[in-house]
């Protein structure tokens, strides 16, 4: 029998709680708003003897991830947390973690990146590292943040995947928003994550190995190709673990979540907390007879292109909500990938991009309803107008 306990938790508290229950061998971290609390709360658990974790306080995020890499290569189960500039400072070593196939789990709180300096939510930091070879899970609320952290351990450590994984929340909106969430008992979490069995731990003195060696033109390509295999294997593993989690704890997880999309003529696709706001907009529009639907993307890496194309194939017009700007003069990252995913459909829906919410700019139900209104016009006229628009910015 699975014990279920309801508790009020912010996103940060939920992620710290998951970390306590996972009880990793090593956490190396450096504080940064709005992710600070995750590792701060966790360091309290260490001080109180509630976990067996070796907590390494370091002098920067670059050092935090470097220490995580060392510990993970040694054979430890390793976790950390960061945000924004912290993730950017880690960027160099994020690639080393994935290149060395180390299943580190990172609690990432999505936040804008400088300049101008800003501590609020957008997805620029996580999107800037979308090609770092990390699995990326987005959460709509504290519950998903908690559940994603627990699943992230299993996904990352699966021998077919062996890739670091970041579970993300939206800065302040989720990280500091208090909600009632369902907690799993310590025992059940322990049973679910199991014991980490690294294939080749550096600390096994009976079987010495060389890690982090230099590759020239003759081997680098092969080792990079292997990372792509890990990413290609990830969908099966993510699906299996999402189902197992659902079977055990009642909350099922896949790559995307569809809301009223079955007969939808117009649809919005987004990630993270905005999905909650968009759901209300969909309900409002449905009550007015508009066939509106919503696609929430939970897994951005690996990108579920086929699934998205399949879900959106019968929609007439789609707006992608991008909470970061690719600054490519061709829209944001989510827009580009979704639009590309639809390319092979025999008849393609019309797609536009809305860059929104940068630096924590609020997005309201009314904003999203306006987007749906535009989509209705697009689907009637067959003309998209501006391909990329900025939602909620002053002109």
């Amino acid at each position, binding site marked *: 029998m699975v014990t279920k306990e309801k508790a009020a938790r912010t996103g940060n508290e939920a992620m710290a709680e998951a970390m306590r229950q996972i009880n990793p061998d090593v956490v190396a971290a450096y504080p940064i708003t709005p992710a600070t609390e995750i590792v701060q709360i966790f360091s309290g658990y260490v001080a109180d003897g509630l976990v067996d974790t070796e907590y390494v306080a370091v002098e920067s995020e670059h050092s935090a991830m470097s220490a995580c890499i060392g510990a993970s290569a040694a054979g430890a189960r390793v976790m950390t947390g960061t945000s924004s500039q912290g993730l950017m400072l880690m960027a160099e070593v994020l690639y080393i973690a994935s290149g*060395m196939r180390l299943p580190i789990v990172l609690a990432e709180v999505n936040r804008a990146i400088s300049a101008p300096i800003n501590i609020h939510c957008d997805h620029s930091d996580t999107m800037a590292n979308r090609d770092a070879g990390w699995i990326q899970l987005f959460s709509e609320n504290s519950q998903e943040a908690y559940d994603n952290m627990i699943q992230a351990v299993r996904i990352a450590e699966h021998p077919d995947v062996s890739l670091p994984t970041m579970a993300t929340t939206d800065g302040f909106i989720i990280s500091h928003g208090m909600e009632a969430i369902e907690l799993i008992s310590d025992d059940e979490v322990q049973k679910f994550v199991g014991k980490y069995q690294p294939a*080749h731990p550096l600390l096994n003195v009976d*079987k010495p*190995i*060389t*890690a982090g*060696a230099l590759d020239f033109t003759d081997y680098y390509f*092969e*080792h990079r190709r*292997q990372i792509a295999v890990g990413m290609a294997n990830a969908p099966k593993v993510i699906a299996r673990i999402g189902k197992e989690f659902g079977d055990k704890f009642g909350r099922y997880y896949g790559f995307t979540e569809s809301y009223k999309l079955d007969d939808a003529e117009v649809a919005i696709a987004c990630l993270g907390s905005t999905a909650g706001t968009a759901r209300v907009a969909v309900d409002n529009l449905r009550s007015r007879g508009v066939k509106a639907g919503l696609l929430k993307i939970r897994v951005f890496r690996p990108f579920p292109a086929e699934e998205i194309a399949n879900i959106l194939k019968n929609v007439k017009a789609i707006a992608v909500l991008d909470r970061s700007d690719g600054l490519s003069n061709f829209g944001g990252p989510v827009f580009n990938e979704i639009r590309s995913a639809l390319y092979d459909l025999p008849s393609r829906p019309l797609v536009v991009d809305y860059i929104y919410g940068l630096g924590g700019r609020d997005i309201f139900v009314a904003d999203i309803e306006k987007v749906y209104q535009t989509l209705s016009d697009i689907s009637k006229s067959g003309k998209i107008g501006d391909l990329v628009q900025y939602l909620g910015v002053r002109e």
Partner: protein
Amino acid sequence: MSDPGYKELPKGGLILEGGTAAKYETGDWRSQRPVFIQENCINCSFCWIFCPDSSIIINDGKVSGIDYKHCKGCGICAFECPAKKKAIIMKSEAEIEG
């Protein structure tokens, strides 16, 4: 025999054995060569301690030569050699090779 493909190689760039630096001949890079002069040597082993590439060969506690397959020619051994008349001197590879 061709090199192994990505399907065969261990993941993550791991090499499933230790001490593999010995197989990598860093001596190719050398532009300066340490030359050992036996009669000047006082067998203090300083060169052996300081060499960053384990390239000083010692037999029975005495320096017997230099492993040129791995010596990268940094000159530390020659610099540290305390013998009155240096027992290791650096010579240009270009001069030696002619």
